[in-house]
């Protein structure tokens, strides 16, 4: 049955996460942006509360909730829907702080989906309350952004493991992460089939962070450049083990690990963009109600802009829920993931822009919306630009006609 009603458990999580975002995240959002970091004591505090950024839900291993009316009825997995609902609330508080929350982050999905049981245990069990820890995901290179197949970081097979050489850029939490999922090629001539994913642990000789970049927005969140110089990675850190790559025949499975991750993380990123747009919208609605005239030109301009913003936010949310729902019921969701990411990323920037327009010049001076505007632009870029999402969508639309675009 078609329904957009949250389950009782989803409602509960949404309310809980919103409370946290409102009372713990939002109050420090502007200060964290000014500092260019999330205060360590705050991270320690929330880690002790057991609050982590968990984007692993899309791996298929998420928790389940009973939805059957009768005992014994098969339960329906809802972890993916839960993840997008919760992430929207966190990003509503502040996206930069959300991305800085301890946890496996974007590194979680590839380990969940492709890691061996031993790797899952070793890498995903470290996120405990004793101290904050992070995971990271390193795919992008200076010469390989949207074209993931063009990565040049090499992995040379040696006795007992691989030696990595190369550079990665734009890596969220890359300097502080306890481990990073790194994509490299065993032979550039093999194209996608040569790709392998490794888990490189912090402190590994030859692995270093060379720079933290300064950005337009998301300033409180660490974005690192990583360097691999003759960095030896033991065999047991090859994600999925040799078996994963040998059993896939001619299929480019290392590349597939990366792509599968996108199918998983794009709805999460879309949900964050929606949370940002909603934050800007609600902030502006409050201001307009208090400050705007109750009739006349400005009143009708505001009515139109706010109605359009509300409509666009909800449309993007439903697209995101659809992608999450498809993942929950075990259907391929690559196209839906691409669509929701494309729509939400662009929509969120547009909504923030509309809100700044409604705030006028005062919006430049210490108002949350200008920060959100700076923050949100990258949601139209990372995890695949809107252009890449169009490409992914079009490929699937044309697939029935045998045309590869």
């Amino acid at each position: 049955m078609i329904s957009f009603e949250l389950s009782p458990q989803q409602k509960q999580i949404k309310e809980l996460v919103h409370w946290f975002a409102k009372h713990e995240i939002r109050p420090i959002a502007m200060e964290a942006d000014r500092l260019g970091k999330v205060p360590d004591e705050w991270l320690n505090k929330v880690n002790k509360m057991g609050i982590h950024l968990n984007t692993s839900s899309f791996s298929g291993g998420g928790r389940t909730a009973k939805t059957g009316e009768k005992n014994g009825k098969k339960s329906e997995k809802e972890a993916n829907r839960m993840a997008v609902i919760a992430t929207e609330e966190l990003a509503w508080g502040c996206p930069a702080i959300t991305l800085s929350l301890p946890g496996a982050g974007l590194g979680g999905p590839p380990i969940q989906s492709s890691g061996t049981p031993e790797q899952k245990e070793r890498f995903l069990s470290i996120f405990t309350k004793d101290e904050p820890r992070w995971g990271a995901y390193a795919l992008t290179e200076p010469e390989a952004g949207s074209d993931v197949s063009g990565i040049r970081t090499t992995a040379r097979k040696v006795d007992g493991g691989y030696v990595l050489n190369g550079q990665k850029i734009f890596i969220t939490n890359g300097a502080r992460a306890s481990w990073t999922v790194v994509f490299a090629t065993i032979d550039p001539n093999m194209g996608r089939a040569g790709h392998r994913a490794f888990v490189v642990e912090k402190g590994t000789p030859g692995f270093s962070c060379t720079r933290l970049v300064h950005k337009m927005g998301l300033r409180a969140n660490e974005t690192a450049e990583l360097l691999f110089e003759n960095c030896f990675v033991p065999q047991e850190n090859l994600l999925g083990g040799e078996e994963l790559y040998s059993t896939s025949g001619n299929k480019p499975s290392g590349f597939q690990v990366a792509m599968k991750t996108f199918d998983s993380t794009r709805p999460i990123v879309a949900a964050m963009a929606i949370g940002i747009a909603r934050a800007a919208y609600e902030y502006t609605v409050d201001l307009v109600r208090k400050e705007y005239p109750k009739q006349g030109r400005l009143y009708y301009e505001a009515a139109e802009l706010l109605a359009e913003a509300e409509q666009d936010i909800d449309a993007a949310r439903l697209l995101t829920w659809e992608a999450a729902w498809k993942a929950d019921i075990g259907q391929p969701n690559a196209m839906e993931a691409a669509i929701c990411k494309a729509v939400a990323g662009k929509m969120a920037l547009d909504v923030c822009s509309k809100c700044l327009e409604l705030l006028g010049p005062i919006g430049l001076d210490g108002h949350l919306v200008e920060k959100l505007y700076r923050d949100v632009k990258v949601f139209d870029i990372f995890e695949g630009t809107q252009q890449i999402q169009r490409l992914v969508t079009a490929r699937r639309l044309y697939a029935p006609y045998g045309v590869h675009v």
Partner: protein
Amino acid sequence: MISFHPTDEEQAFYDLARNFAVEHIRPAARECEANRSVSASIIKMVGELGFSTLELPESWGGLELPLISQVQILQALSYGDLGIVQGLSGPGDTASFIRLQPDHPLLQSYKSSGRNGCWPSVAFIDATDRNATWASELDIRANGSGYIVKGTSQPVRLATSAEYVLIAAVDSKGECVVLWLENKHWEVLKGDFRLGLLAAGLGRLHFPDVHVGAEQVIARGKEASELIANVQQRLRVLEAAKEVGLMEASLNYAIEYTAGRQAFGQEIAKFQGVSFTIAEMAFEFKAAKHLVWQAAIKVDEQASDAEGHALRALSRAHRSLRHVTDCAVQMLGGHGYVQEYPVEKWMRDAQAQVALYGRERDLLVRRGEQIMNRQKERVAQ
């Protein structure tokens, strides 16, 4: 629980409607447009399949389906041709009044007339927007316990074949009223319609100086106001659903065409200017569809925010429809502009549909006013 799965029954209805649309409606589209009416054979088949009574109550022999089921079926039918769907004889938009007032004594003669399953056409005139009086010369003046209807309506569908007319209006005193006219005391002004929905029986109805007795009043005052508001909610959702069907038709046609058409030595789909446009058409189609589904559920539930959902669903459907049908013509290039291909008709039909069913910007402003005047407004559920 969030789900995008239709029920088995809805899926069966949808499949039936979609097959009928592809096999019977679409092939007849050009002929019906040229004849400016829907052929009797199509009307008969639609009646036999039950698609003409989706909104009518069971006590009237209708299917009385919830809106969430209706929107899926209407989407499937309109996938064939919106002009034909809008030209199907029967209660038309008035079905929603009947749905909400099935036992009203005034409507019983119409109920009797449709006993054989062949429903006469009813034209619906919405003259409730007092700010748009320039667009209509229709004057509803209180006259004792009745009214005098004088002047000419805006263009409405099913005008040319209407045997009954339902008028929802604000009278000269500013009071809402719903009138039922069945004595054909009107003249059909066929006008000069060329844009689109030409099989929909578009026309303006002229009322010379018609005295309407109290016995022809379905509702007045607060009762009429509430009835009209509830009907408008339903109509906005149902019309938006039809627009979603036309969007889907345009999208799929454009995909198939661009996958086969060659230029510069390859399928034009391989040019990103083309494939990206197709992707954007898909974005708009899906976004509009979801908002329509959400609004349908809200109206079915009689939720307090149903009106806002209906307003924005139609507003978004208008916006997306204009975009998608225009893109379809663009994707076919010169072929899109000529009548050998359906997309030029679909673009014309789309613009006519948008003109008939509420201005996009006006719908937005109405929703915006709700947002601005409410104490607490949150996008989240």
